[in-house]
């Protein structure tokens, strides 16, 4: 039991570290690689839960996480970056130090909140929920602090990683829900892709700041 717990704790902890790396990293390809690493850690964590809980459908979830978010989405985003020609640095609204401290604060908040709210639940559930909430909040923070549309997409996808982690820790999310979430994320990726290219066509940049000056249909 403790061994099963410590492996799950390790994998979820590495996912949290990946979230912080996403927040810290300002090179766009490194952001993608970190995201892929986080998704692969997620698939390992889900597979481990499947092994521990003896529920084979979690292996399908793990396979979806690995194939879709570990390989397909980073690959598509990579192609997108190459076609957009943005290999340069990611610019941020707040500086890295402030973002990291905000991230630490959010992590503390998530842990304290979940520990306070779920005193009677099983240890896997509390663990999974606490770290998943931290990863979700860090994903939100990443979407707020970034101005580049592509890294905002990565932030959105890492929120979804956190959701899957929470669902597997809590036991008993039906496979149908997981499959539909995975495909809606895939569709969201295509919508994002179309949007990013439209933004670039309109403004010659994927910097979100240029959207702030738009007031209605002026062209």
């Amino acid at each position, binding site marked *: 039991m*403790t*061994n099963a*717990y*410590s*492996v799950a*704790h*390790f994998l979820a*902890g*590495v996912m*949290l*570290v990946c979230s*912080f790396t996403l927040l*810290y990293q300002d090179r766009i390809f490194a952001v993608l690689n970190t995201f892929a690493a986080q998704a692969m850690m997620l698939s390992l964590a889900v597979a481990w839960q499947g092994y521990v809980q003896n529920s084979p459908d979690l292996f399908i979830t793990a396979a979806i996480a690995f194939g879709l978010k570990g390989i397909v989405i980073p690959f598509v985003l990579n192609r997108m970056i190459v076609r957009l020609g943005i290999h340069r640095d990611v610019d941020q609204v707040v500086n*890295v*130090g402030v973002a*990291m401290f905000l*991230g*630490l604060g959010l*992590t*503390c908040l998530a*842990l304290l909140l979940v*520990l306070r709210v779920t005193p009677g639940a099983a*240890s896997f559930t*509390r*663990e999974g929920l*606490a*770290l998943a909430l931290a990863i979700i909040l860090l994903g939100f923070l990443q979407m707020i602090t970034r101005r580049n549309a592509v890294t905002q997409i990565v932030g959105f996808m890492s929120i979804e990683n956190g959701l899957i982690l929470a669902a597997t820790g809590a036991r008993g999310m039906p496979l149908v829900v997981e499959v539909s979430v995975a495909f809606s994320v895939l569709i969201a990726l295509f919508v994002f892709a179309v949007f990013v290219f439209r933004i670039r066509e309109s403004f010659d940049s994927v910097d979100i700041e240029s959207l702030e000056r738009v007031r209605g249909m002026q062209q």
Partner: protein
Amino acid sequence: MAATLESFLAQGAQMFLVLAIAPAVTGITRRVKARLTRRRGAPLLQGYRDLLKLVRKDVVLAENASWFFRTAPYLIFAFTWVAAALVPTMASGLMFNWAADVVALVALIGAARALLALAAMDAGTAFGGIGSSREMMIASLAEPATLLVALTIAFAAGTTRLPEVAQFLINQPIELRVSFALAFVALVIVALAENARIPVDNPITHLELTMVHEAMALEYSGRHLAMIEAAGYLKLVLYISLIICLFLPFGMAPIDGGPVAWAIGAVIYLAKVSIAAVALGVWEVSIAKMRVFRVSEFLGGAFIFSFLAILLAFLSREVLR
């Protein structure tokens, strides 16, 4: 009474062991770096020869240097030596175990650093001031991270006293502990910064734009410089011993161990230190130095890692309770 005498002798042996191996450890690192860049490199004993040469040479003092400038090197050496002698290396049942506390170690290193920074400004040259201010910037980021690492370990072991921590870890079954892994990374980053190694500082350069530690020691010569160099060698051994003691204490003699266990512990310790020195050389060759203004991000990373380590340790303790 005999046991007390034995442990006193063992403590003394450890004290002189760390002093004796200190220049050789730096020598191994330099040698590895030289071999990897296809140079022959200085022999391993070069550090001892340098110290001997410096002790024999005359001291050149700046005209307006005060008494503080002359006494600081000895104090710096003494503080560092005491700190290095306290970290358990080969055994955990030594005489002064009660004093081998992480918080006390941080305080001793901090005192040595404050003395060096003050002495560097004493001669009134610009470089000393630059070095001091940069050193203090590094210290202000490195010290909280060190303390958080110590607290993470203390969280698991229930004490900040190093010999007890080491014994606790030896007696634990081998487990996957993500908080220890993060604390390890944080402490390695701190050790690199504190010992003025690449990527934070280059220990062999005298380029005024980048030097930190060397800028503070620039005005020193003769036996004073020898003291400061020796303190630098000792500090590297201190940090390697600390990392070994906190994360890889296996092979260390137990609290009630006798001379045989101590001897085995000493051999294993020397092997571990040599491996660490080689690893440091390989690391330094394979990475470039950072700009001074990026150092805060690098050390901030150490702080974040150690903070996450303590958060995860807290979480797993709360959840499993």
